[in-house]
């Protein structure tokens, strides 16, 4: 029976088990080959799709490589000035509390220029979801050092590696905001393998479910690659991320149901 099955028998609409969600537009992503931004975009849109919330969600795009997120996510979106996405999300959620509101931000956006907005929105317990893509670098502007750059990590502005003595320590902003009483669910995930993609999607789903229950700020960090900024092939960048980023930014839940678990 198996022998008689032809390609035409399998490739039929009724047999589709996975296709790109319709909430991603058909525009070609502006991201470099292998960049985790694309996967993260798609997971957020799959969750919104599953929640049937396309018409009821407002996303805030950052400044950074994902500045064009509104071109790729087929929902209502607003672009924020660099780092200001949580402030904008605060206003939008307070004016339209029935909408699902999220920000999508890189580490330069969220943990450098936008540190104040991030911390205060979290501390106020704004009922929004923050999707934080941490690639340890300013990708868009040419791979400069970010607050999240690892000790010893090379970047265009730390060509000999980040020297803690002169350049300070990397900021674990996710651990920091987990300690604020306004945050309810804080987790760190990755999207480089199928298993991680499935876990990250569950975390994003949970964050939006909790927002619907008005639980406070939910925060999902995705530790990601920047193969252009790191100057590696995508596959090597993912391996470098596993070997170097994960020991410093360990994956897993940090705060669940308003309680620190790590």
């Amino acid at each position: 029976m198996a022998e008689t099955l032809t390609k035409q028998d399998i490739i039929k609409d009724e047999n589709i088990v996975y296709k790109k969600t319709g909430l991603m537009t058909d525009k070609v992503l502006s991201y470099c080959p292998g960049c985790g931004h694309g996967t993260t975009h798609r997971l957020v849109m799959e969750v919104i799709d599953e929640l049937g919330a396309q018409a009821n969600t407002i996303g805030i795009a950052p400044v950074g490589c994902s500045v064009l997120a509104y071109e790729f996510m087929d929902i209502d979106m607003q672009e924020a000035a660099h780092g200001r996405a949580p402030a904008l999300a605060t206003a939008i959620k307070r004016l339209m509390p029935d909408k699902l509101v999220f920000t999508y931000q890189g580490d330069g956006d969220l943990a450098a220029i936008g540190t104040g907005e991030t911390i205060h929105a979290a501390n106020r317990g704004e009922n929004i979801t923050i999707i934080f893509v941490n690639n340890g670098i300013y990708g868009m502007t040419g791979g400069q050092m970010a607050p999240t750059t690892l000790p010893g990590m090379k970047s265009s502005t730390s060509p000999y590696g980040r020297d803690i003595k002169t350049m300070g320590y990397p900021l674990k902003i996710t651990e920091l905001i987990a300690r604020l009483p306004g945050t309810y669910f804080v987790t760190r995930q990755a999207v480089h393998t199928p298993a991680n993609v499935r876990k990250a999607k569950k975390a994003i789903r949970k964050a939006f479910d909790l927002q619907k229950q008005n639980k406070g700020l939910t925060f999902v960090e995705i530790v990601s690659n920047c193969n252009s900024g790191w100057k590696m092939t995508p596959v090597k960048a993912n391996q470098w991320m596993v070997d170097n980023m994960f020991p410093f930014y360990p994956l897993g839940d940090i705060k669940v149901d308003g309680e620190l678990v790590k």
Partner: protein
Amino acid sequence: MAKVKGDIIVDIERCKGCEVCIDACPTHTIAMSEDVNGKGYHYMQNVHDACTGCTNCAIVCPDGVITVYRVKI
């Protein structure tokens, strides 16, 4: 043994040749092409008939260019 049979369709012109999908495939069904697409990228293609429709390649593809099909046999 296998009670399912799968197949994939790759949107070749949108594949960026990143190779992230290759290791994600448990049955080693996919590989990069010798040819390049219109953008100059080697693209991912099906080289064996071992696909089980597990969706692993499709869910790790940053560009979402893979559609997966599965039938029970």
